[in-house]
């Protein structure tokens, strides 16, 4: 089963990279852009006997590894293969 996972910094954690990108695109003339935040996007396949097992596995993977809960939050959803 294919999943798409997003991991972003929590809103109260400084996203220095996002700020810098916003600044750079401003100076490139995109003044209408703001509140930019950067995160990570993962596509991955999980082999499992049934969708529920696959969801359990991805949940565990996100919570334990793909995301550091001290600074990040995650969301995931099934993705087209």
């Amino acid at each position, binding site marked *: 089963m294919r999943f798409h996972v997003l991991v972003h910094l929590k809103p*109260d*954690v*400084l996203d*220095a*990279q996002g700020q*810098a990108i916003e600044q750079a695109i401003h100076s490139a003339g995109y003044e209408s852009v703001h509140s930019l935040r950067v995160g990570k996007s993962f596509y991955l396949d999980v082999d499992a006997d049934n969708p529920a097992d696959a969801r359990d596995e991805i949940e565990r993977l996100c919570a334990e*590894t*793909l995301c*550091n809960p*001290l*600074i990040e939050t995650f969301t995931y959803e099934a993705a087209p293969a």
Partner: protein
Amino acid sequence: MTHATFAVVVFPGSNCDRDCVHALRDELQQRVVEVWHRDAIPANVDCIVIPGGFSYGDALRAGALAALSPVMGSVKRFADAGAPIIGICNGFQALLEAKLLPGALLRNRSLRFRCKRVHVRIETTACAFTSSGLSIHDSLSLPIAHGFGAYHLPKDQLAHLESSGQIVLRYCDSTSAVTDGANPNGSVNNIAGVMNAQGNMLGLMPHPERASSELLGGADGLKLFRAAIQSVSNTPFANAPADGAPA
């Protein structure tokens, strides 16, 4: 001269392992074993070094994938038994990711990797790595080299960390003043190094093994290792359980 046996852990992508071995073996005449990340720490080891580098290429978050390695279980058992353990740079990141130390490291405020010499101030001598030969507010000159070194902890936890005295090192200027200008990466409260509640595990961003000879511009880093050697010979910790035994 006191002697200890050090384990230097090697992950795929570690690149300061040899420097740590060199500083300990050649500059301090200690016994050193290198331990591959799939193995456990041998029972006769007194102190553990988790060295810097780019374990797994820092592919997920710095240190995050190293934290999953089999060796970390045995590091935890040694930690529980009270052995001095130091995580340097990527090693610090791995200890945080393994939740053996509190906090996380964010990208440097400048967004750039920074390699330079900084000063850090000793904030406590209750740590195995500062407990002898050093005094509170002594400053050390140590090199840093990292892109993800901004120490972060949510406010409430930070207050607890400060009040429990677990902050070991802060970035400071050449007069030992803790200033924003002396903060090379945007770490909260200028934090450069923290320890666990017991004081036997230290994680820090600067590289003490690089400050290991006057030829390289100073040997302040050896003071941290010397203190650990001293602390083992003073109070040899109850040796950790044999490989694989439950903690």
